[in-house]
């Protein structure tokens, strides 16, 4: 998963940077507006969408805070993401009715050349705020490492790693994508 961090950080031209930023801002808006199918359409066929859970371990513990074979809130391929979207769209998705209000705030976007031609490594930070019914308010803050792949005039998301600050998720559920 971390192969990209070993690549040299070769910045992209300003136009590519702008287009990637637009892609991420638009993605955030699609999620805020519960446009689930439009969001799914941004995914590459081989998407790996991963949000590991954080473990508190001593610094000397070589196992590290998270790993691919440990706990995860998302460890999804396209089929898995599609299943989650299928649930969101059911009239019986009780925890979505009345609708949850989302704000996906994306910032700190850095774009570098990827390991393959037409791929880009994109770092970003996010703030996610969800509000439900009267005063269920949940805040998640974290950082993402994406691989975007050029696709026609736009991009597809091929990899996403989401690292949040919480080890105990301070919420009853995670009814959104990040």
């Amino acid at each position: 998963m971390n192969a990209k961090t070993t690549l040299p950080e070769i910045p992209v031209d300003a136009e590519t940077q702008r287009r990637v930023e637009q892609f991420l801002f638009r993605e955030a808006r699609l999620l805020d507006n519960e446009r689930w199918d439009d969001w799914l359409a941004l995914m590459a066929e081989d998407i790996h969408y991963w949000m590991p859970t954080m473990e508190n371990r001593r610094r000397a513990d070589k196992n590290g805070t998270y790993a691919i074979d440990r706990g995860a809130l998302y460890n999804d391929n396209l089929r898995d993401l599609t299943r989650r979207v299928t649930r969101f769209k059911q009239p019986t998705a009780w925890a979505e009715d009345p609708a949850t209000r989302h704000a996906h705030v994306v910032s700190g976007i850095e774009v570098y050349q990827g390991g393959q031609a037409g791929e880009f490594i994109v770092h970003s930070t996010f703030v996610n705020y969800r509000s439900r019914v009267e005063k269920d308010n949940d805040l998640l803050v974290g950082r993402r490492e994406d691989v975007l792949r050029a696709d026609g005039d736009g991009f597809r998301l091929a990899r996403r790693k989401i690292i949040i600050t919480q080890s105990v998720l301070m919420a009853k559920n995670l009814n959104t994508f990040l």
Partner: protein
Amino acid sequence: MCNANGDQPIRLKRRPIAQSIENLDQLLSLEQGRMSRDVFWDKDIYEQEMERIFARCWLFVAHESQIPKAGDYVSTYMGEDNVLIVRQKDGSIKGFLNTCPHRGNKVCFADLGNARQFVCNYHGWAFGIDGGLKGMHASETYEAAGMDKSEHGLHPVAHVDSYRGLIFATLDPDAPSLADYLGDMRYYLDAVFDMDEGGTEFIGGCVKSVIQCNWKYASENFVGDILHAGWTHDSGAKAMVGGPVAEVHKTPEQSYHVNFNGHGWEFNQDIVGNCATLGEKELLKYLYVLQPKVAERLGELRSKMIGAISSCTLFPNTSFLPGQNTFRTWHPRGPGQIELHTWTFVNKKAPQEIKDMWRKGTMMTFSPSGVFEMDDGENWEYSTRSNAGFVTRQQDLYLGLGHDTRVEDTDLPGNVYQGQINEANQRAFYQRWLDLMKADSWKTVPQRDVPKMKEGV
């Protein structure tokens, strides 16, 4: 089996039991299928639960596979008491309060790991993995004061024991044995935790989250409430299998509620019903191939439970789902909050790709992002929170399903009820809760259930 704390000096002080809240009997009218909402809201009831349930019962603390080597430890909770569960050099397991006996600071801040010692960050008091105080920073000052190190080790829990890889501990020196505590529920536990001769293991770490609900809503849901699945989890089932939840209420002859000492298991005999919701055919194949072998070892009935539509709670706050293979503890955090810790369990001998599918499958279905668990939390939160209303919480709740479904003429262990759509287990759960809440000590807890299994099987 291990009971490593037995030979320790008693260093766990307990105040004499506090006076009970009056008129607890009035909270439950189980024969009428009614109960008070106060049990989910009242702060004094919660405090009494801490003393008479969580500081008394055997509580799940770890799986043996989490701490295979000497010095391996996990940090977990018994009620709101933070404890360290540590594998010893002789292979036994000990448990300690995670607090320094000097000024009270937490001695271990990691969730898990391997340690040669636990050293308090405050004044450098250092404890061996056996809990003994080995030394302190500026040790000569303590020597000058004449302090006896042997009197200041970590506070050991009262007893540690395990069953089929599941490690339990109790903070009450007078607790019955774990075998007695689990009683006939062990018969059913074997269907899942002794499914094949390799036993089970926990894989993939722990997922933790907070739900603003009373702990009993979660426990009672898993102790017997399959009823909610067809309604609450319709969206999850449509997502995972493309159709609604199985209509188990139409075939009560195939399913049961069983309970013993407040533990309860509702189950169908469809072999793979729970597992099917993970949407992985390979897992179904794995269970179908295993089922005849389980039948040979444990008999036909238990072989049909291995991944069936079912759920179980071990009193008070540990639950699991066969087939979906999620194992979880609902740690109480005041009357209106729990901290949920979940793990994935698998058969040790299962192929790696099967284990990986289960690890992914539990996260996909029964984690905070899971398509089933997603809708549970909100139900429990608002079932709890609505009781903030002063008049609201004076209204009774109903739990009367399945009166007259008791199966008397059976060799099956435990109290057996026909039909998994039932509230017999929930009533038994609350009866046990009331028995413990009323009793001043284990000696006065009534033994309502007559075991068919022998002690220490």
